[in-house]
C-alpha cells in the first residue's frame, strides 16, 4: 500500500496547477476532494490495515514513514468527509489563491494524520497554519487582517517552542520517529521529560484551541467567510485532535508523576467555562 502517499501528493500538485486554470478551479477542487475520499474508502476496504509506508525506501527509524492503523483510517475518513461537506459551501470565488490555500490545507491535514515522524509532523502543522492564515485573511478587510496577523504571530511563536522540543528529543534520544521515541522514552530523566512535554504541549494547545491560547478563535471566526470556518473547525480541528491524541497519549504516555489526562481535562473544562462566560458578555 505504498500508494497512500497519493493522498498528500495529488492535492499539492493541484495547488500548483490552480495558478493557471482560472475558471476550472472549482471543478478541480471537487475532483481532488472526491478522489481523496474515494481513495480513503478504498484503503479502508482493502483490508491490509495496519501497514507502514517507508518514503524513499529508507526503513522506519531512519527515513520518514507514514503509519496507517485502525484509528488513523477513521480519522482520515472524518477529515476527508469534512472536506467534502465544507466545499459545498464555497460560492463563486474567482481568486486562484483561495483554491491553492484549500489544496494545501487538504494535503496538510491528511499528512498530519498519516505521518509517523516528529519533524514531518511539525512541517505539516506549519503548512496548515499558513494555509489557515491565508484563508482567514481572504476578505482582506479590517477584522480579517487583524485576526490573521494575530493568529500568525501566536502560532509561529508556539511552533518555535515545538521546534525546541524536537531538538531536545533528538539530543537526548537520538531519533525522531514516533514509535522509536515511545520505546526509548522510559530511559529519560523525569525533569527532562517534563521540560520536553511542557514545550510541546504549549504548541499543541494553539492548534486545539484550548484555554490560554484560544483568544484568536473568536476574531478569526468573525472575520472569515462561512466555508473557511468549516475548514478551520472540520479539517484542522479533527487533524489536530488526532495529532494531539497520538503524540500526547501514545508517544508521551502517562508515566512517573505527570498525568497528562488530568491536565488536559482541567484545561478543557476551563476552556468551556471561560468561553461560555465570554459568549454571554458578547453583545448581539
Amino acid at each position, binding site marked *: 500500500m505504498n500508494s497512500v502517499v497519493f493522498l498528500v501528493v495529488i492535492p499539492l500538485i493541484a495547488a500548483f496547477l490552480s495558478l493557471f486554470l482560472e475558471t476550472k478551479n472549482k471543478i478541480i477542487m471537487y475532483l481532488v476532494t472526491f478522489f481523496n475520499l474515494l481513495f480513503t474508502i478504498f484503503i479502508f476496504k482493502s483490508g491490509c490495515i495496519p501497514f507502514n509506508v517507508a518514503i524513499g525506501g529508507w526503513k522506519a527509524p531512519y527515513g520518514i514513514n507514514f503509519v496507517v492503523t485502525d484509528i488513523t483510517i477513521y480519522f482520515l475518513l472524518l477529515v476527508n468527509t469534512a472536506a467534502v461537506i465544507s466545499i459545498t459551501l464555497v460560492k463563486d470565488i474567482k481568486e486562484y489563491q483561495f483554491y491553492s490555500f484549500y489544496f494545501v490545507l487538504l494535503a496538510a491535514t491528511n499528512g498530519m494524520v498519516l505521518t509517523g515522524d516528529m*519533524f514531518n509532523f511539525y512541517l505539516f502543522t506549519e503548512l496548515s497554519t499558513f494555509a489557515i*492564515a491565508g484563508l482567514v485573511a481572504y476578505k482582506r478587510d479590517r477584522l480579517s487582517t*487583524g485576526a490573521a*496577523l*494575530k493568529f*500568525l504571530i501566536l502560532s*509561529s511563536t508556539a511552533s518555535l517552542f515545538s521546534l525546541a522540543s524536537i531538538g531536545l528529543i533528538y*539530543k537526548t534520544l537520538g531519533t525522531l520517529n514516533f514509535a522509536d521515541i515511545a520505546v526509548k522514552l522510559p530511559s529519560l530523566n523525569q525533569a527532562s521529560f517534563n521540560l520536553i512535554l511542557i514545550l510541546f504541549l504549549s504548541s499543541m494547545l494553539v492548534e486545539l484551541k484550548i484555554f490560554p491560547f484560544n483568544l484568536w478563535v473568536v476574531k478569526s471566526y468573525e472575520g472569515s467567510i462561512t466555508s473557511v470556518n468549516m475548514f478551520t473547525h472540520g479539517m484542522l480541528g479533527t487533524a489536530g485532535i488526532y495529532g494531539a491524541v497520538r503524540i500526547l497519549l501514545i508517544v508521551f504516555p502517562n508515566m512517573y508523576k505527570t498525568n497528562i489526562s488530568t491536565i488536559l481535562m482541567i484545561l478543557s473544562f476551563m476552556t468551556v467555562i471561560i468561553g461560555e462566560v465570554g459568549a454571554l458578555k458578547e453583545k448581539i
Partner: protein
Amino acid sequence: MTKVFILSSLSLVFVGLYGVLTRKNIVKILIALNIIETGINMLLVAFGYIEGGLTPILQSDLSIANLDKMVDPVPQALVLTSIVIGLGTTAFALALAIRYKNTHNSNLITATDEEG
C-alpha cells in the same frame, strides 16, 4: 565551547521572548520573533556539536576514517529547513502588516478591530 554556544543561543531566545511579549509595534514584534528563531536554530546546531568536531563533508579517505569525530549532520539538516520556514513566516507577516497599516491606520498591535 559547547557551553558558550548553548548559553549564547539561550540568551538570544530570552531576549527575543521579552521583545515579543512587551513591544507593541508590529515590525518590532516580527524582528523579535526572528531573534527567537535565530536562537532556536543555534540551539539545535549546538546540540549536535562535539568538542573538536570535524565538518561532515567527505574530502578524502582520511575523513572516512574519522567518521566518529564528525559533528551531527541531522540537526544541521533540520535547521536548513527551519531557516527557510522562518523566511516564509516573516514575508507573510510583513505583507499582513502593510495591509494592517492600511486598514487600521496604525502600526501598533493594540489597535482595536472594530470599525470607526
